[in-house]
């Protein structure tokens, strides 16, 4: 994700729920815009537009890490990130 953000020329912010200073920010983001539950699934990915709107675009899979990786790869190859893929193919 960090590389995708770099290719797009946008900021990348990561909140680690195992780090005390970051968990509150992560909780707020998930509670407001994501898939909130008391012990919410991770990772969760959000995109903020230039207008300042935040969109939830991905939640990890409880089934397995492999499922999460596969689905995340689908996301990164989706039309949502088409501009990144177009640049990479040049």
């Amino acid at each position, binding site marked *: 994700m960090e590389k995708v953000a770099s290719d797009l020329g946008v900021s990348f912010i990561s909140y680690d729920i195992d780090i005390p200073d970051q968990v509150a920010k992560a909780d707020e983001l998930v509670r407001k815009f994501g*898939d909130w*539950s008391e012990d*919410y699934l991770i990772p969760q990915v959000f995109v903020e537009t230039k207008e300042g709107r935040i969109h939830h675009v*991905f939640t990890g899979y409880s089934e397995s890490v492999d499922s999460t990786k596969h*689905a995340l790869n689908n996301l990164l190859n989706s*039309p949502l990130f088409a501009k990144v893929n177009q640049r990479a193919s040049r």
Partner: protein
Amino acid sequence: MTPRCYGHCKEPAGFEFKDDSMIVQVCPDRYVSRIVKYGSQVNPDYFKGALRGLASGLEGVESSDIRVASRYAWDLGFNRENDDLMVRLAYWTQSYRRTKNESADRAALFFCSNKDSFFMQLMNSSNRFCRNCKG
């Protein structure tokens, strides 16, 4: 790759449809690793209530055991340009980070091989049928 059984053994644990809104992840011994409720919307509280009623003797189903997820077209592999929500899921994982009892004799939730009912039995049991089907 088929996910592995969680909390019972290391065997592959596939997913089976219980009905048109519920999927059960079970290993070859029919131990339930996860139950997934799905639909256009899911209600975690309602799901918790439904779980508690699955089998007599099932204990310890708490709100913290239920986690939700939104699935969109892209992460399901559909090539769509919009961000329509495809389905909402609620996951329940049996014994997820809760029980301190590692005894093989503890009771756990199993899914009958006839795929129509849940039942409780000891973790180390080799039986794969509920009482009604076992005969």
